[in-house]
């Protein structure tokens, strides 16, 4: 999402120097902790609670990987990164993986030399307007003033959208989400645009959330997912299949409550293979046979993690939408465990 040209250039330049140490899996096992890069704070996705414990949707991925590799979901050293420091932290080896609502894009994958192991949240850029503006579609926003975070891909998406629909707008550049909330509430702009999850989280903090509506248009694709360095495919596989295990677990109905019962053996061979009672999938990854069971035990399956951190029961109140299982009309589709 956020990316400045300078820093991507710096990152790319530094990539040559930051030789990725091969054998991240062995490093993590030897160290006994997983160094996981997270955001410095994003509602629902990653934030420390009053006791200083990290919690959130992205954090849950870190914990699942730590549980799969080390058997302990708390054996994670969370390294907070900003939008500007995240890629150098990963490239320089300071962190083993990055789970920081990072959009999977071509240049990040190819040019910055990272491997996105999957998508844990399908986001997209949306619009929020006050209800009394009487707007029901983003195409009615001709001449509107728009609060927009500078230096992000959302800024470019916005320009593209308005140009392709041949309508005009007046941007109000702002720096942070916090500033945007204040500007928007103070009436400095008619519309606030950022990722739909961010809009929902922002609206949830308003005193009167009902006075604001999210417009139906989603004008960009923002697949957010965890990523690792190029060049260490074994480690990439571990992170990728841990994420897939969480997604498959939901599809197959494995939850944190029934997992111990299921680990005794079931009639479904795929469940048995995931939970390690059949086959040698864990061994192939270089992990214990019950690696996926530990990962799912860390915070539940994908659906449980979603509901606990950002789902409809939380103040953020995001619907599953695109992030439902493919069987429910969403995009979550894990390759088979075979």
């Amino acid at each position, binding site marked *: 999402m956020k990316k400045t040209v300078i820093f991507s250039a710096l990152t790319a330049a530094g990539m040559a120097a930051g030789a990725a140490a091969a054998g991240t899996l062995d490093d993590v096992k030897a160290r006994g902790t997983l160094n996981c890069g997270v955001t410095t704070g994003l509602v629902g996705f990653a934030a420390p609670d009053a006791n200083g414990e990290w919690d959130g949707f992205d954090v849950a991925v870190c914990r699942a990987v730590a549980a799969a590799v080390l058997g302990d979901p708390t054996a994670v050293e969370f390294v907070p990164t900003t939008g500007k420091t995240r890629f150098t932290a990963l490239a320089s080896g300071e962190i083993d993986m990055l789970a920081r609502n990072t959009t999977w894009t071509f240049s990040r994958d190819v040019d910055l030399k990272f491997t996105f192991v999957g998508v844990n949240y399908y986001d997209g850029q949306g619009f929020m307007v006050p209800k009394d503006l009487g707007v029901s579609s983003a195409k009615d926003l001709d001449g509107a003033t728009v609060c927009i975070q500078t230096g992000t891909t959302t800024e470019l998406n916005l320009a593209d959208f308005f140009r392709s629909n041949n309508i005009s707008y007046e941007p109000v550049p702002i720096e942070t989400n916090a500033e945007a*909330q204040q500007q928007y509430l103070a009436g400095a702009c008619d519309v606030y645009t950022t990722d739909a999850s961010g809009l929902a989280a922002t609206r949830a903090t308003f005193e009167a959330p009902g006075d604001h509506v999210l417009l139906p248009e989603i004008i960009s694709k923002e697949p957010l997912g965890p990523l690792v360095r190029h060049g260490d495919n074994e480690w990439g596989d571990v992170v990728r299949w841990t994420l897939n295990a969480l997604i498959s677990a939901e599809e197959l109905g494995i939850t944190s409550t029934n997992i111990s019962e299921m680990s005794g053996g079931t009639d479904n061979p795929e469940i048995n293979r995931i939970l390690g009672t059949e086959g040698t999938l864990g061994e192939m990854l270089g992990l214990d046979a019950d690696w996926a069971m530990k990962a799912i035990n860390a915070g539940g399956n994908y659906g449980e993690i979603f509901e606990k951190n950002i789902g409809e029961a939380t103040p953020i109140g995001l619907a599953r939408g695109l992030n439902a299982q493919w069987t429910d009309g969403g995009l979550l589709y894990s390759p088979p465990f075979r």
Partner: protein
Amino acid sequence: MSDTSAAFVRTEQVPPSPPPASATGPVKWAKDNLFSTPLYSLLTIAAFYFIYLILANTLPWIANGVWGTSSLAECREALNGVSGGCFSVLTERWNQLLFGFKYPADQYWRPALTFLLFFAAAAPVLFFKLPRQLLLFTALFPFIAFYLIWGGTILTPILALVGFVAGYFVYQRFVTGSFAAGFFGGIATAFVVWIIGGMLIPANANEGALLSTVPSRDLGGFMLNMMLGVTCVSLSVPLGIALALGRQSDMPLIKWICVVFIEFIRGVPLITLLFVASVMLAYFFPPGTTTDLFLRVVIMITMFSAAYIAEVIRGGLAALPRGQYEAADSLGLDYPQAMRLIILPQALKISIPGIVNVAVGLFKDTVLVSVISMFDLLGMIRGPILASTEWNGVYWELLGFASLLFFVVCYGISQYSQWLERQLATDHR
């Protein structure tokens, strides 16, 4: 005519009657100061109305404040539409605002004790009428503070101290012969002591130490701002003096090193230096050997403020009349004596407002470390606290609290500097 007596002769003084009400007391003060001309009266009324507007909005907001809830939503429920602050965030997260979110809660007494000891250590430096023996504690304070805050084995600070003491003795021994021999000999000795001592300390010395180890990454909150501010100010003043003198030196090499350093650092924004410290330096070290982030940031901020202080002191040096330098020469003083006894005391006195200005600015600039994902006071507010589902949306209370903390410190520094200027005012005005 002789027995004609006056009808009335006053035999005693008329008792002074009180001045008319319009020429005394608050009425006169108000008339003189607030309503002396129609224009002033108008401005006064406008100003009072303005103050009333501010207070009418803020006072109920503070008075209605909610202190005991556990989330913003509960606050709003408790307020029930009335305007009021949600100060519960301060009562719930005060420890994170002050110490960061990872400093172990049962160890808060360590930074708190360090903070108290800091006043004892700073007092003899700030108030020169106190007995000079107290400076011994000031010299020991950095090591005590390091041990208290970071914990771990006590051997580390002791080794650092021994290195300094050994270096100092070597310096004392050789400085009479040649300043350079003493200076570089002292530095070399200190490093030899540290390297040898570092090998002697067992690798597992931190395990089972009396005070548990707290890595730099776990420091945060206002504690981090204070630590950065105090460390960087106290390091950058001597460095700034050295740079200012070096810039005036007759030796071209030293002069040009100082000029290039000062001009380069002053020409680069602080935030750029911080990014270099946090991001780029990692590429210059071999993989796996990273210098502590706190140390990297301290070095960068110190270099930055030293360059500014050097220029302030250079202004002080330039303000001294040429005669002062010539007087020192004619007394037969050598360069260090002339500087120490005649030039610097006067130049530094002139530079006090400028140095304090840089120090206050530097202290406030420490919040910039929040952009390189260190959780100082502002970083805690912008990151973890505003990103928690409970407190997302609380701005005025948190930022007001931060302003209050910074204001207390900066106002204190400013008051001290004014007192110091009065104390040192020896000229005739």
